[in-house]
Structures are given as structure tokens and as C-alpha cells.
């Protein structure tokens, strides 16, 4: 006996209908679920948004960096077209063959091919690998033409930061480079905002300022990144672009500097192979026309990553090409400091005709303080002492003035302080951070735990030696303040840029007696124009002033009858080793370079209507009159002849209108 359908058919049919109902219900639920998902999307857009997120990749567009101009609109740092070739390793069938073919076009050796193949194997297969940039146009064209056979190769026409004057402006402008891992780690530590920033920094096109103005004004110059949506597949491979969704980047702001490209170039040439610094300032406005440090280096090397060998060559050189000596180099000012001592002594009550007898040494405190001139100067007053740079006079003048008063005058003339030039000030960077220098006085001496100040220190202070440390820019400021009849000139490097306003009229240094100032100024005139002056070699600039038009003209037979243009100056020698009998009087060239004294020269001119102040420091250049003086003379000649202060500078608005009008 078996069951028949008829006997149980009723139950079966009922249950079959029930079960079918459950199945239909389930299918209905699926349909409702679809409707529900889509209804959610209608109200919140949730799924559509995520679909778009999936589909589109937000690609960062790095902003064009702000252009740096000199005062007359010469581009000092700009954005240059860069032709490059990259590969996406994943898309390349045969890495050796493909990279080899490119090497052939670019005329590169097998070594290069091997290195690139290894990089391609080690990197992420779908990340583009930059093979070479800075391609010549014809190389780029050949690669472009052969793209169909070179699978996985990308030829890109992009932009990169460029410094057209190479080493001439390397120090004030600095350079950009790829963010370092440390910089990325630092922003990563800043939380979620930092993470977004880190992603941006990892973009291969992003560059950050690493030194100079590029670093200090990074925020202004960088601009704001834009983005575009690129249609991608799930592997992130672009399959198209949505031109409607372009959010263009905001370019960085341009900046006009106070520098004069011609004069800066001239200064770098004049410094030549020397290590040192030259600065020229406009004493009316404080504009820094020249801010040269030598030796220079090519900032373009850093933009796309400098090689270790190149970096070592720069970093380990004893002439320190990477140092921005104008603001980071500290030197004893030597005799260039004597004007300060003279003013301080006069302020202490020293009579105008006070004179001393110089036998070539000054016995004090049980030892002899030597004068640079072995036989001495004989009887000298202040005018003669500045002119002949008599050390003995200023040993005694310093004792007359007292250390505190000398320090005070030094500070009034701009020593011992930093200036806001738009250059990096601290932040731990040792290569480009502006130094404050040291103006010693008894209080400072105690504060660093060296006990009681002694008169012996004051004597040394009198000739700008000892602990006194000044930077070339401070020397330039001192000279400018002397030239501007005691107005507290403040230097500036940025003429026009965000947050920069016109310089105020500089106030007179309070408490400065014009008679005291006049005395040291005429002393400086004597240095380069009177018999016995230490820098007579710098006297003849070869320039004359036309008596009616007041224009400066080169000295020619026709103009020889006009009044020559004169400058006032002061030599200085900063001891690297204490002045000893062994080195005294020896010609500097017979001493090993790194033990030679630093040579300094400060000057201003034209004497009849001062406008420009100049300071030159030549490291290990021997006495100031030897090397520094002639360099200053060359620079002053060109500066006074060009007279940039009288030429109309270009404004940022003009420059931007001009670049907008120019073909791209």
C-alpha cells in the first residue's frame, strides 16, 4: 500500500498554495526593497552620491606658484614649461625594451635604463613613474610620435618652478623642493585636517618653499589647489574626464622685490670666487637693491630633488655656498665699527679736537694692544683716526665712552636685531635663518655667566673685535643710517606683496647729536678721498655729476671738467685669529685661506647727495681695503650710474596685466 495523491491531495494543495504564497511574498519583498533603496536615494541622494564618488576620482591640480619679480619686473622665480616622460609600469609589456627605447631617444646609457627598470619593478605598478623631465622639444616630439608603439608611456607637458638667473638670486629667493617625509609626518600629526594636507603633499607635483622668500612666504606664493573629476574604473584607471566639473586652482600671489636684477648680477660677478656678501640699500626707502651671497648655488637643482653628490658638494664646501651670508653670516665688524665708538665717545663728552698719540701699540692692563700699523700713526684726532683707521685712538676712545654707551649707539644704528625682510627667521633652519648677532655689554656679559666685564674687553670693543658679531645686512643698515644723517632706516626686501605697505618716513635716531654724526661722516669721506685714507683705491668711481641736470655721467674726456662723484667709506678687518706678531704685517696671500682675516668695507654715496649705502664682507679676504673695497667700488659705480631709485619701479598690477596679455 502506498499513499495516493487523492487521499492527501487537499493538504498538499493547501500547503503548496501556502508555500507559493511565501515565495511570492519573498519576491515581493525584494521588489519593495529595490523601491526602498531607490526612494532613499530620491530623498537623500545617498546612493547616487556614492555612485559618483565611485565613478569619479578627484584629481588635484596644483596651483601655479606666485612669480617673484625684481623692482623693474624682471622675473626671478617663475613657472616654466616642463616636458617629461613617465611610464605606468602595469601597462608596459616589456619594461627593458620600453625604457631602452626611451633611453635611445634621450641618448641615455644602459646604466640609466637599469636603474629605471629597477625603480619600475619596486614601485606600485599603476602609479606613474617619472622617467625624465626637462626634455628637449624634439625629444618630446619623437616620443609623442612613437607613443602608439610605446605602450604604457606617458609624455606630459607640465609646469615646474624655475629660477632663470640660476645662482644670482639663490640666497634671498631660496628654492622649492618636494615635501620631505618629515614635513608630511608633521602635518599628519595635526589630525584629520592634516591627513588631507598630507595627501596633498604626497602629490608628485607639489613643491614647498625650503629656503629664503620661497620658504618664508610659502603661504602667499603657493596658492590654492584646484581639482577636476576624472572618470575612473574600479582600479582607479582614468577612462574619461568631466570637463564640467573643473575647479580651477587659485594661483599664488606674485611678489615684487626691492632687488635690482642688474646690480645683483653685477655684485655676484664682483664677488666672483670669493666667499662673502654684498648689500646695497636705498637710504631713503630702505629698499635692498643688492643682497648677494657668494659663492652661489643653482636653486634649480633642488626643485626636482638634488642628488646626494651635488648636495654634498654644496654642503661640505668650506665656502658654504648654501649659507645666506647676508643675513646668517656673523662677523666681527672690525674697524667698520669705529664710527659707533666715535659717536659714543663724543656723546660721553669727548671734545671734538681730542687727539691721542699712536706709537703703534697701546699698553693696557699689563699687555700691549697693537695698532694695525706697526710704526703707529703719530698724533691723531678722530678725523685722522677714522681716515687712517688708527686702532690706538679707538682703544682710548672706547675707554672714554664706556662699553655700555658703545653698545647703545651700536643698537641705535641697527646692530643686535633682526629685520622683517620676508626671510625665514627661526624654525630651526640653520642655513637660511636670519641671525641677530651679538652686541656685548656688561649686562649681557653677566647674563651668560662670564662675571665682571673688564676694561680690557672695552678696549677690544673699540676696534670692533671681541664678542661683537654683526651680519652684513646690519652693516648695511648702519651705513644707511650714517648716510641718511641719522634717520633710523629700516631695510626691506619686498616692495609689493600681500600685507606690504609703503615704508614710513624714518624718524631721526633720538639723542643723536648731528655734530657727532658729521664728524664721523667726514672721517669716512677722508677714508676714500684724502691722503692717508685707507681706501683711496675706492675713491675714483669714474663718475661725474652734470652741474645743471644733476645727472650722473660716466667720466669721459668731455665730462672730465665736471665734479667727480665721491663716496665715503670705511674699511674693516675682522680677525679670524687674534692679531699676533706672527701674522701682523704679513701679506694676506701668504696665510692659509681659512686663517686669513675677513675683509670688510662699508660705504655710501654720492657724497654730495647720499642715496645708496653699501656693505661688503669678504670671508678670509684679508684687510678690508684689499679685496672688499674694490668689490664695493664696482658695485657702487654701477649703482650710482644706474641710479635705480630714480627709475619708476613696476607695480604688481602692471606686471600681472602684462603676463595676462602675453600669449601662454
Amino acid at each position: 500500500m502506498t499513499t495516493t495523491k487523492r487521499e492527501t491531495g487537499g493538504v498538499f494543495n493547501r500547503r503548496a498554495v501556502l508555500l507559493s504564497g511565501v515565495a511570492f511574498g519573498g519576491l515581493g519583498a525584494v521588489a519593495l526593497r529595490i523601491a526602498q533603496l531607490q526612494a532613499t536615494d530620491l530623498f537623500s541622494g545617498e546612493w547616487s552620491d556614492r555612485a559618483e564618488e565611485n565613478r569619479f576620482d578627484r584629481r588635484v591640480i596644483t596651483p601655479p606658484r606666485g612669480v617673484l619679480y625684481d623692482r623693474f619686473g624682471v622675473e626671478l622665480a617663475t613657472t616654466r614649461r616642463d616636458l617629461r616622460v613617465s611610464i605606468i609600469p602595469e601597462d608596459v609589456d616589456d619594461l627593458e625594451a620600453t625604457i631602452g627605447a626611451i633611453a635611445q631617444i634621450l641618448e641615455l646609457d644602459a646604466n640609466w635604463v637599469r636603474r629605471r627598470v629597477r625603480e619600475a619593478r619596486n614601485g606600485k605598478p599603476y602609479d606613474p613613474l617619472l622617467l625624465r623631465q626637462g626634455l628637449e622639444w624634439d625629444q618630446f616630439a619623437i616620443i609623442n610620435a612613437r607613443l602608439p608603439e610605446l605602450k604604457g608611456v606617458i609624455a606630459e607637458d607640465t609646469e615646474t618652478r624655475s629660477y632663470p638667473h640660476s645662482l644670482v638670486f639663490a640666497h634671498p629667493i631660496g628654492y622649492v623642493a618636494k615635501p620631505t617625509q618629515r614635513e608630511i609626518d608633521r602635518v599628519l600629526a595635526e589630525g584629520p585636517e592634516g591627513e588631507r594636507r598630507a595627501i596633498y603633499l604626497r602629490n608628485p607635483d607639489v613643491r614647498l618653499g625650503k629656503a629664503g622668500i620661497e620658504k618664508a612666504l610659502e603661504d602667499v606664493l603657493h596658492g590654492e589647489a584646484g581639482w577636476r573629476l576624472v572618470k575612473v574604473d574600479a582600479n582607479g584607471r582614468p577612462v574619461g574626464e568631466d570637463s564640467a566639473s573643473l575647479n580651477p586652482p587659485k594661483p599664488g600671489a606674485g611678489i615684487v622685490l626691492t632687488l635690482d636684477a642688474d646690480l645683483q648680477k653685477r655684485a655676484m660677478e664682483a664677488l666672483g670666487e670669493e666667499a662673502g656678501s654684498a648689500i646695497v640699500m636705498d637710504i631713503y626707502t630702505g629698499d635692498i637693491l643688492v643682497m648677494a651671497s657668494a659663492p652661489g648655488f643653482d636653486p634649480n637643482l633642488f626643485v626636482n630633488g638634488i642628488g646626494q653628490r651635488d648636495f654634498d658638494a654644496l654642503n661640505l664646501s668650506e665656502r658654504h655656498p648654501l649659507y645666506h651670508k647676508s643675513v646668517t653670516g656673523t662677523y666681527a665688524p672690525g674697524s667698520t665699527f669705529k664710527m659707533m665708538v666715535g659717536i659714543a665717545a663724543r656723546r660721553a663728552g669727548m671734545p671734538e679736537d681730542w687727539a691721542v698719540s699712536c706709537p703703534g701699540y697701546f699698553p693696557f692692563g699689563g699687555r700691549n694692544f697693537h695698532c694695525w700699523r706697526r710704526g703707529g700713526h703719530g698724533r691723531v684726532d678722530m678725523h685722522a683716526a677714522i681716515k687712517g683707521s688708527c686702532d690706538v685712538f679707538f682703544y682710548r676712545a672706547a675707554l672714554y665712552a664706556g662699553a655700555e654707551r658703545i653698545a647703545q649707539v651700536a643698537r641705535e644704528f641697527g646692530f643686535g636685531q633682526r629685520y622683517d625682510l620676508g626671510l625665514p627667521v627661526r624654525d630651526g633652519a640653520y642655513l637660511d635663518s636670519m641671525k641677530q648677532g651679538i652686541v656685548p655689554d656688561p649686562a649681557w656679559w653677566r647674563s651668560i655667566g662670564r662675571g665682571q666685564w673688564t676694561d680690557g674687553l672695552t678696549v677690544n670693543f673699540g676696534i670692533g673685535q671681541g664678542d661683537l658679531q654683526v651680519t652684513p645686512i646690519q652693516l648695511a643698515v648702519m651705513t644707511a643710517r650714517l648716510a641718511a644723517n641719522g634717520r633710523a632706516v629700516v631695510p626691506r626686501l619686498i616692495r609689493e606683496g600681500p600685507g606690504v605697505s609703503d615704508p614710513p618716513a624714518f624718524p631721526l635716531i633720538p639723542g643723536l647729536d648731528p655734530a657727532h654724526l658729521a664728524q664721523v661722516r667726514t672721517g669716512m669721506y677722508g677714508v676714500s678721498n684724502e691722503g692717508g685714507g685707507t681706501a683711496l683705491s675706492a675713491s675714483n668711481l669714474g663718475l661725474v655729476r652734470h652741474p645743471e641736470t644733476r645727472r650722473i655721467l660716466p667720466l669721459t674726456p668731455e665730462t672730465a671738467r665736471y665734479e667727480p662723484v665721491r663716496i665715503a667709506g670705511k674699511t674693516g678687518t675682522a680677525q679670524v685669529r687674534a692679531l699676533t706678531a706672527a701674522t701682523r704685517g704679513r701679506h694676506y696671500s701668504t696665510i692659509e685661506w681659512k686663517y686669513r682675516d675677513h675683509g670688510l668695507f662699508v660705504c655710501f654715496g654720492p657724497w654730495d647727495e647720499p642715496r645708496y649705502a653699501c656693505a661688503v664682507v669678504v670671508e678670509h679676504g684679508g684687510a678690508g681695503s684689499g679685496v672688499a673695497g674694490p668689490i664695493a667700488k664696482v658695485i657702487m659705480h654701477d649703482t650710482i650710474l644706474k641710479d635705480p631709485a630714480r627709475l619708476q619701479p613696476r607695480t604688481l598690477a602692471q606686471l600681472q596685466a602684462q603676463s595676462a596679455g602675453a600669449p601662454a
Partner: protein
Amino acid sequence: MTAMLASARGPRTGVIGKLRRLNWWIITSLTVLALIGVAMHTSVSSGDATALKPLTHGLRYAALLFIAIAVALFVPPRSWYLIAYPLYATTMLLLIGVELVGETRMGATRWLAVGPVSLQPSEIMKVAIVLALARYYEDLKPGRAVTLLWSIPALFLIGAPVALVMHQPDLGTATLIAMAGLAVMFLAGLRWRYIIVAMGVAAASAVGAYYFALHDYQRARINVFLGLADDPLGEGYHVLQSKIAIGSAGLTGAGWRQGSQSQGDFLPEKDTDFIFTMIVEEFGFLGGFVVVAIFAFLLWKAVEVATRARTMFGALASAGVAATLSCYVLINTAMVTGLVPVVGIPLPLISYGGTAMVTIMAGFAIVLSIDLHRDQTGARGILW
């Protein structure tokens, strides 16, 4: 007697007559679904003119349909009844064989290599379990099917293969075998009180299984589904992408070959388990609804065959195939819409791949055969 009937009914006998009496509603539904599959595989392969998937899919269906019709015409229910137990026993042996010498692919041991052919015995079991249970209940004395005692052998028939398949591990197939078997038991008339108790036990053992019997990856899927784990790029990625594609499709979809999520490869497994998502993305709510409706129609037609069948075997076998189909479709569509955890079950006749299509076509060959031969009095004497 057969000959007399044949002459009396005239055109209702003979191959032509039989062809005319085949259930063409079912055949048409199957064919429409397979053609939808061809269309979707063409879309999957868009941009690749040399892709063979759509052609393979279509030819595979055509061949299977031809075989299924031939089987329906020439293999009567009586034969299915006779081979039910031997088929079940052989499949069990094969499953044990898989345990011992099975081939492991992607971490699961499901395949058995027989010469050049690899075969998944767990797939054969989906049909075999239905036939074996149908025969078991056919053979029972009246009234016994409703009792607990006589349900125990049926439970063993289901439990043994389910346990083996679970161990492979293949949760999806095990679920399908169990649900098809339990559906047959339910239809055979088991008393409600036992069913209710059994459902309680099932719920309890599901919890138990979660902690003890499931593999880590299976547990991970369930965790993500339950919202216990957040893992958008791991186990939850498939469903998230599926929901994105379905949610953003709208009423009529992006259009054939225009679905951005499917075409952009964001949707994984779009030609197999997640093909329903692609249908909805490209044809919208309406497209999804039409596909679900065709499956519902097919299900209705299969249940109709079951209710018309004169024998318990025929009724239960047809209903069992209908249940298997329903489980496939329900689990797949519920999975891709995020209603149930991810279980690797394709959408029959549409998803690419031969296995599920063979299983479903084999099942419908039996349904067609039962329907075709429902009035064949000659079968009576043999069947009981």
C-alpha cells in the same frame, strides 16, 4: 491498452502530439530568462567584441533545453521514481568521495575530477534529494507522512548530504538542499505542531551554528550583514557596491551597457552572483521587477504542475523543483539587495556558469515530464 488509448486520443500521442502537449509556458519562461542572461552578458563584455560569454551562455541554454525536452518526452515519471534512490545513493557516495579525494579550489573542496570533467556532486544532490524524498513519501502508508516517527528517515535523507556539503564548505548549496528537502517534507503533510517545534529548534541551532559550525569568513559575512562589523572594503564591499548600483538606478535605469557601477568594475561578480544588480542598474526598478515577475510566473507554473499531478511522487517532485528554484531566486535577490547575508548563490538561467543552469534545467526536465505524463494511466500500475 496503451495502443487503444493512443488511437482513441489521436494526436495526443506520438512525438508530435507530446511536443504539442509540452508545457510551453514553462519553456517560454525559461527561454526568456536565458535570453535576458545573454543580453546581460553582452553588456558585461561591452567593448570586447571577441568576448564569447553571451554566445556560450545562449548555446549552453539551447543545448540544455534540447536535452530537457528530449528527457521530458522520453523519460516518464515512472523512470524518475525508479532511479530516485540509486541516484541519491550514488550522489552520496560522490559527496563522500569529494570529502576524501576532492579537488580544492579557492579554499573549498567541492569538485571531483572524473577524467577531464570536474563535477560538483553537491549540485546533483539538489535534484537527487527532491526525487528521493518524493519517492519516500510516495512509498509511505497513508497517514504516516504526518507523524514525527516517519519523518525521521526523511530528516536523515536531508541531513546527511547537508552535513557533507556544509563541510566542503558550501553554505549556499547546503542551504538550498536543506530548504528544498524541508519544503518537500512540509508539502507531504507533516503536522503543524512538529513544524512549529522544528522552527524553534532551527532558530536555536542557527545561533549554535553561528558560533560553532560556521567558518570565519562565513561568520564575517553575517557580522557585516547584522551591522556588527563595519568593513566597507572587505566582506561588506560587495553588498555596498550592489546597494549603490541599485539605489542610484532609478525607475528605468541607466540603460543597457550604460551602468556606471557595473561597467566601471565597481560591482564585483557582476556576471555571476551579482548579475541581478546589473539588471537593476541598467534597466531600473522596472527591469528588476520584470525579472522577478518572470521567476514568479515560472514558479506558479511549476506549482500548477504539482497540484495537477495525480501521484504523490509527481506532486512532490514538481513542488520540490519549484522550491529549489524559489530558494535560488529568493536568496540571490535578497542577498544582492542586502536583505540577507552574502551567500554564494547565482541567479538561475541568468548568471554565467553551467552548474546552476544544469541543475535547474534538470529539475524542469522532470517537471515537464511529470506534466506531460500526468494523464498517462499506464503509469499507474507501475507506480503503485
